[in-house]
């Protein structure tokens, strides 16, 4: 590319000196804060409308606004988090926690989104089951899977936890059509990131990074994707050492 002459070249040179990664990170952060204000106003509106009869359609539109707003919020958080991991070292806050508490929280966080879809969500874990993990990272990874499921499920999503081969396996299952073949093949890997299409695959990659930040001796976390399971749809599993 040949640079245009004069003032335009100065602009180009100036832009060339900007650290866009840092700039984008700061802007994404600002966007997230703005979005928070939008979502708070939306929540207030929803609660003001809850008594009044605004009609089914308007209710549905409000729910959809909330749903999409939350998706944007979570995507922004994923980007910011990946940026932080990269800048490192990231303090992984490993603590010994009851798995049932985590599942309760994940279900509670997903509840407000369900109004936009006719989908139910349920979760269960063996009582007394405890594990070492970073709550924030795990919530980030599983929330992403729940959002995927909300997009694809027919009518239900189920969260479960078991111990498999010395790993805690957190599973998100739905009754939708399942993951497409190319996602099953390498979803979650850095190679699968697609910067040009409209599906970047960033969400699954983020989940995979959250999993891998969990290490225990030689072992580290991972995610697996499959189809079938108890509900016949997509099965996302987060394995934590």
């Amino acid at each position, binding site marked *: 590319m040949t640079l245009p002459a004069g003032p335009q070249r100065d602009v180009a040179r100036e832009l060339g000196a900007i650290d866009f990664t840092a700039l984008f990170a700061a802007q994404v*952060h600002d966007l*997230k804060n703005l979005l*928070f204000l939008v*979502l*708070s106003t939306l929540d207030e509106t929803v609660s003001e409308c809850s008594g009044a009869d605004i009609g089914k359609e308007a209710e549905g539109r409000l729910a959809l606004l909330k749903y999409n707003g939350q998706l944007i*919020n979570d995507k922004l*958080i994923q980007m*910011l988090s990946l940026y*932080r991991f990269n800048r490192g*070292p*990231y*303090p992984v*806050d*490993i*603590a*010994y*926690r*009851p798995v*049932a*508490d985590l599942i*309760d*929280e994940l279900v*509670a*966080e997903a*509840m*407000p989104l369900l109004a936009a879809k006719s989908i139910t969500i349920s979760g269960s874990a063996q009582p*007394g089951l*405890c594990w*070492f993990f970073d709550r*924030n990272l795990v919530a980030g990874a599983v929330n992403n899977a729940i959002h995927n499921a909300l997009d694809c499920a027919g009518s239900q999503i189920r969260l479960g936890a078991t111990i498999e081969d010395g790993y805690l396996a957190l599973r998100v299952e739905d009754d939708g059509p399942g993951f497409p073949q190319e996602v099953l093949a390498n979803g979650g890997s850095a190679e699968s990131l697609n910067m040009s299409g409209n599906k970047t695959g960033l969400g699954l990659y983020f989940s995979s990074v959250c999993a891998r930040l969990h290490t*225990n001796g030689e072992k580290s976390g991972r995610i697996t994707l499959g189809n079938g399971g108890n509900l016949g749809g997509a099965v996302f599993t987060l394995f934590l050492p």
Partner: protein
Amino acid sequence: MSEPINFQEKNFLVIDDGPGMRASLRTTISALGGIRIDMAGNGIEAVNRLEQRAYDIILCDYDLGGGKDGQQLLEEIKCRKLVKHSAIFMMVTAEQSYEKVVSAVELAPDDYLVKPFTGEVLRLRLERLAQKKAYFAPVYELMDRQDYRQAIQVCDELLKTPNQHLVDLMRMKAEICMLLGDYVIAKALYEQVLAMREIPWARMGLAKSMFKQNNFSEAAEIFRQVTEANPNYMEAYDWLAKSYSATGDEKAAQQALMVAAGKSPRMLQRRKLLGVAAYQNDDLETAQDAFEAVLEFGKNSALTSPEDYANLSRVFIDKGSCDQALSVMKNARKAFKNSPEVLLHGAVMDSLAYQKTGDTKAAEAELKKALEYFHDCDNKPGGVSLDIARACFQLGDEETGKEIVQDFIKNNHDDQKIHRHAEDMFRKIGLEDKGKEIIRDSSRVVIALNNQAVRMAQAGDLKGSVDLLMQAVSEYQENTVIVLNAAHAILAYMQKQGWDEELSQAAKRYLATVKHRDPDNQKYLMLSDLYKDVSQQHGFTV
């Protein structure tokens, strides 16, 4: 499953600098059923509130605008015991402060929430925390009563049944063992946790148990590794500096503190330590920066003392900037409204400053004032003794200077840090050898006396040992070791010879003195247990 809490009965305190966020949290809490909700917009307001009312649930934003941040506020609250052990302290954080919040290892909040969060998640978290607090309540209660042995027994009892609080219980037991000086048990507990999982607080605990067993270089190596793996763990730098200092490497100690001060510039205590270390290393520029920062950031808070001004004045004097030294103490007198303590520090530092400019007459006049204040002062601030001795030596009154140092050392005969400071003072005025001799001789007097008391007790002359030590207490009231040994001797005597009302009162008084000075002193804890045993042995209940 968590038990529901009756939020209606709880006192909430919301601390946030943004009015919008405060309003939003109030709405959230109200939706949970809470009605008694107080608000504070900054750390100072929060402390005022906490002094007036016992809160059950505190929601505190990490970022509180210009002043203290949430973590510093939490440290002040815990340090001043402004909340009960049963109170819940929840840190609320924006996503960009999250890393700092989870990096607080030692004085961590009960839990944290990343904004934005839903009311439902807040409710779930609070219910679980209430449940956890209830589970630990018996241990907390014993700890509040300083009944640490019993608290360990309760931990052991709870550890018998596997449960979700297993790791927290092990941590708590290890911390109590550290308080009691059971370092070997504490170390084993931290190793047990580390065998399950690499967790930074456990690694820190392991290193601290080594430090306490005087394995300073091994401890330093682990602290260094912790700072490397977790560069935001501020406590690790403090302990790293302490470990280097204990091995005599003041330069490395200063370096560690400088890294930490760069990361959290507003931590006054650390700045102070940095200033002291730099001053000892003759790095006057760093010392000046550090002490100036202490005064600057500590402005309008109760966290500075006249001694902080004296520290800065001393640096200016050594640099030859005597006008600045005088003006610092002038500001000090204004800030502390001519309190006896500031007048004492002021007179001493002014004397040193005048002496440096060659105005011997003014220096002598100030020293005379200083000595009067010094003798009238019951509670002599530690550092002032060395400054006043320095003024005496420099103005040619060696006798008085020597007496003051002797007295200071005799009251701190086993405190290596104080000995080093004293040596340093002598070095700076060119009397290194003479100083060492005075320090050594002074501490030897007390050591000899102490040894004599031990020999008498071993030879069966328990009463003689008691008399000797009680005499020593009247001479060296500030010496915690002597005061405790006197109490110990009395208790040993009464175990053998029976109850003596007058002596028992003396022992009680001695123990109370130490409790006031250093409530977690290990020997004090041990002796207060012994006091109970001896009283019971003679039919008294305490």
